[in-house]
């Protein structure tokens, strides 16, 4: 039986680790390579490395930082932020990324998902979706809408429809990030996560809102997620990765406990 995964997300801006609250107020909190190594040695299952400015600034991701992380972290490494083409994806893979996250560019040009899946394999293409809660409408009947460019631009696309479309086009995994919950540390958006997990047959990674260990437990059970993504709660030293995994294991979830 597969273990549930704890994934740490390192948001990087100008080569430094940053963390935003509701996607706006960002501040630097350290060296991503050091943090990655620290989490890896403490039992992290997977790492997501995200260039948070790349998408709106059209800046290329810092391949050298990805390379430095890949040199010393021997777990799956997923990288995203500003991926616009197969060439971007290939460059990141050569730098050492296992999986490539596509987000805004895929919303604007969905064929990007299929192109990346053909080039690097479905299992390596992660569709990362930023979602906000809205009043249900004809456009967004689920009451969840896709936003892009770091949460700044609402697209009038229903989140569940987009998840299904992403799966159909060849995404191997989904990251479901709630803009409303992001950075609040008040818990994941359980309803959103469960609805998307039930709709697709590919693994779902829950993102946004983790603040306490029980939040991870809730999203991996009630939220039906395969993996829980954490950021602030570990970046600021409030919790250790091993501590979160021990907690989830003690509550009966299958976790990887030796590393």
């Amino acid at each position, binding site marked *: 039986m*597969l273990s549930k995964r704890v994934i740490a997300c390192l948001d990087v801006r100008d080569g430094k680790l940053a963390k935003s609250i509701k996607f706006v107020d960002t501040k630097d909190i350290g060296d991503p390579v050091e943090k990655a190594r620290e989490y890896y040695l403490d039992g992290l299952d997977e790492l997501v490395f995200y260039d948070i400015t790349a998408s709106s600034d059209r800046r290329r991701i810092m391949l050298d930082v990805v390379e430095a992380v890949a040199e010393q972290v021997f777990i799956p490494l997923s990288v995203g932020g500003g991926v616009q083409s197969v060439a971007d994806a290939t460059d990141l893979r*050569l730098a*050492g990324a296992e999986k490539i996250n596509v987000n805004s560019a895929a919303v604007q040009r969905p064929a990007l998902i299929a192109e990346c899946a053909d080039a690097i394999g479905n299992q390596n293409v992660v569709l990362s979706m930023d979602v906000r809660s809205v009043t249900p409408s004809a456009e967004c009947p689920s009451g969840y809408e896709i936003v892009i460019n770091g949460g700044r631009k609402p697209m009038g696309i229903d989140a569940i429809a987009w998840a299904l479309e992403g799966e159909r086009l060849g995404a191997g995994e989904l990251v479901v990030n709630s803009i409303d919950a992001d950075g609040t540390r008040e818990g994941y958006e359980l309803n959103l996560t469960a609805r998307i997990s039930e709709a697709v047959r590919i693994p779902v990674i829950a993102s946004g809102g983790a603040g306490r260990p029980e939040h991870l437990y809730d999203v991996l059970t009630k939220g039906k997620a395969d993996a829980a993504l954490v950021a602030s709660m570990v970046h600021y030293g409030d919790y250790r990765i091993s501590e979160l995994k021990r907690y989830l294991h003690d509550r009966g979830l299958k976790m990887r406990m030796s590393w």
Partner: protein
Amino acid sequence: MAIIIDYDAGNLRSVQRACREVGLDAEISADPERLRYADRIIFPGVGAAGPAMRSITANGMDEALKEAIARGVPTLGICLGMQISLDHSEEGDTDTLGLIPGQVRRFRFDRPELKIPHMGWNEVRVVKPHPLLSGVCPGDEFYFVHGYYPCPDDPNDVYAVTDYEVEFACALGRGNYFGMQCHPEKSGRVGLGVFERFARWDGSC
């Protein structure tokens, strides 16, 4: 010099990095001639069975690999690189190298909550001792990503198993050939241990 076989212009650098981490000098090469001088071979996993077989038969890599294995060169197959060691794969209905008798089958599940590919960390349970698995303890997990799994004919070829609805062979071998379905290069310290022991392995078991 160890050779990492490049057969699809895939990303093999994570395997090379893992080798470097344990002090094993490994060169990535698509040239069958290089296998003549290899003292160790790693056949990694990228892509699908059909294209991979076409690629290695087109340049003679298949024959060079079989010759090297027959010569006793310690060889490690990973993921697709391991699957190709059996006789046949359901993936693209492909005839493969036939080093280990058996088939490669696709996961088929009726329960929608069982996702394909089998992706993530899962336990590797050693069922028969092997020098490359000597440090693997009960409960140790490795990272997997695959939609097809090996079914060797002879249970004597199976060294470890993993459960994903079905129990399948995740480590198999014969003589100086050893293959794993999981990715030791992405499996933390436990995975690096496989490379560490491979670097010293004389090919006997």
